């Protein structure tokens, strides 16, 4: 999943890949008008309690803005990219055919002391695809998307590094959850949705939640894990379990339910406090139609929005287990009563 390009607004290819993984474990899969991939795993009973899971399948990336006189490509960002991470990256320009390119810059030898101190702005960067202008224009046009070229690698232990773990880690949690549910008895219908366009404004979650209008909607996204420069004592740590979101965006009973299940099954979890906007699909889910009880599970992740994001696979597996058991625990529950204030 992480090696397949899936830029916000251009999720067709990645959604096909995801669909293949979920097919054996689901009852129905549809794509909606904005491209959200809606995976349905039906519950046992006829009662129509609906649980909605959302993990976004889009990732940040770049887009062709102009081809200059020498055939270099000027570009803009899709989603929040730190321009400092772009220098000397390798990219794929998705024109009529995929072109390999590098984001070039002046060699250090000819840089002035002043220049070295400054960040190169994205608008001053160029992609070199090694072709003449005419050849480039033949293959590439304004508006074509560009993805960062990056292979996933294994680090020590169960840790991995790649681009786009934000939020393929979340999609992986849904996969683990749905797989677990295949071995269990659950009454609620579960809609696992790989949402589009989260990185540009939670857009897929807005429309897909409207469409399904569930009783409970849980977003699974990545959260900041502590690193040497982030010393706040309240950040999550890698490998210590998924972080359960708490705050106004989250229905207190959903938070309670998830943490109770974790305790009951001895699965590790952490807590993440959100004083307001969570910046995740949960923010959109909650205020859909006449209101949805929202939850949020974050997979701790280092170096968010770079091409070397790091997660611990155990956090993903544990999140999937907690989620599946939470859904099963709802079998005996009257949701109206549970979600009442």
């Amino acid at each position, binding site marked *: 999943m992480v090696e397949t390009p899936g830029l916000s607004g*251009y999720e067709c290819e990645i959604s096909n890949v995801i669909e293949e993984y979920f097919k054996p474990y689901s009852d129905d899969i549809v794509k*909606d008008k904005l491209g959200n991939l809606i995976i349905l795993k039906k519950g046992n009973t006829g009662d129509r309690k609906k649980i909605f899971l959302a993990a976004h399948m889009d990732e940040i990336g770049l*887009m062709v803005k*102009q081809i200059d006189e020498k055939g270099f490509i000027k570009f*803009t960002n899709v989603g929040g990219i730190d321009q400092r991470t772009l220098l000397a990256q390798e990219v794929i320009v998705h024109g009529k055919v995929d072109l390999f390119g590098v984001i070039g810059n002046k060699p250090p030898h000819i840089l002035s002391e002043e220049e070295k101190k400054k960040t190169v702005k994205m608008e001053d960067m160029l992609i070199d695809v090694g072709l003449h202008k005419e050849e480039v224009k033949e293959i590439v046009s*304004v*508006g074509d998307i560009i993805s960062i070229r990056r292979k996933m690698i294994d680090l020590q232990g169960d840790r991995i590094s790649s681009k786009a773990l934000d939020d393929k880690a979340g999609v992986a949690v849904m996969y683990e959850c749905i797989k677990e549910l295949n071995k269990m008895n659950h009454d609620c219908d579960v809609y696992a949705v790989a949402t589009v*366009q989260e990185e540009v404004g939670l857009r897929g979650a807005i429309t897909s939640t409207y469409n399904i209008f569930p009783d409970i909607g849980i977003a699974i996204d990545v959260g900041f894990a502590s690193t040497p420069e982030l010393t706040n004592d309240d950040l999550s740590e890698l490998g210590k379990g998924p972080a359960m979101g708490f705050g106004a965006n989250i229905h207190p009973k959903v938070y309670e339910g998830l943490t109770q299940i974790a305790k009951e099954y001895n699965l590790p979890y952490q807590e993440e406090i959100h004083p307001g906007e969570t910046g995740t699909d949960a923010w959109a889910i909650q205020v859909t139609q006449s209101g949805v009880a929202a939850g949020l599970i974050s997979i701790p992740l280092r170096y968010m929005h770079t091409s070397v994001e790091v997660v611990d696979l155990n956090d993903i597996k544990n999140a999937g287990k907690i989620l599946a058991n939470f859904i099963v625990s709802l079998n005996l529950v009257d949701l109206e009563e549970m979600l009442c204030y």
Partner: protein
Amino acid sequence: MFVNKINAELLKKLLMTFGPSGNEEKIRKVIKEEIQEFADEIKVDALGNLIAIKKGKGKRIMVASHMDEIGIMVTNVDDDGFLRFTNIGGVSPFMSLGQKVIFDDETIGVIGMEKLDDIKDLKLNKMFIDVGLPSKEEVIKKINVGDVASFYSPFIYQNECIISKTLDDRIGCFVAIEALKKLKDTPNEIYFVFTVQEEVGLRGAKTAAYGINPDLGIAIDVTLTGDTPKAEVMDVGLGKGAAIKVKDRSIIVSPKVKDLITEVAVDNEIPFQYEILDAGGTDSGAIHLSRSGIPSGVISIPCRYVHSPSEMVYISDVINSIKLLIKVLEKEKINI
């Protein structure tokens, strides 16, 4: 020779009619009268959007062009009769300095500023409007807190271009009106919506799209260009054809919609260019997130100096945009 090519009289009327966001009564009336005989049904919704329907059997398409314009609202009248004001939509203090504004009752005022040591400190709250009356008592007979004004500047038709205020987005309204008039029988059902309050946050389009719930949304608006000296990098220029939007801050146009409009342009040999706008958004941003999602695109008219009293477009781009819109609306078996 270009005078024959477009209905300059109508365009001038659209451009010179008063209509800051939230105060679209006059422009709505002008447009309504203009299109009445061409639409099968016309209605106005709770926010003031004007909706003209052209019946058909195929896809339900919403065409949105906003009829509101940027302007100012009076916040205070002081004892000497000077008016303090705030912006309605994206009003730059630097663009406003020395300009004239016109109120609903056609009172004209000039914008002045307090003495500043450094012009960089210029903000709207350091500026005021002078309507040339000596006292508060005289002024409040005509103008009060909450009254609005639009910028005042002449309509210029010169060579191949139009220079005017409010081309954003009366030129879009013009394109939609001309398309509605020229559209004969259409295989699709078209909702021409002249939206309100776009400049303050795409508000009219949001409620109109909810009410109509179309299969496809197309906004018609102006876009910036990258063809002036030391402009920001942008591949759009005046005279290079209708612009098909790829993305802006409010929408990433679905590749399917982008391809659909492109295909129509190519098939009909209509010059076009792709538009990537790093700042700003338009009605499609609100339409595509309505209900369960509505595939939406934008046809843009390239425009220099947007949100100034001297916006500029080329006639040829306007004509190509009209052609492109008509051909899209006439397309049979749209598959999105």
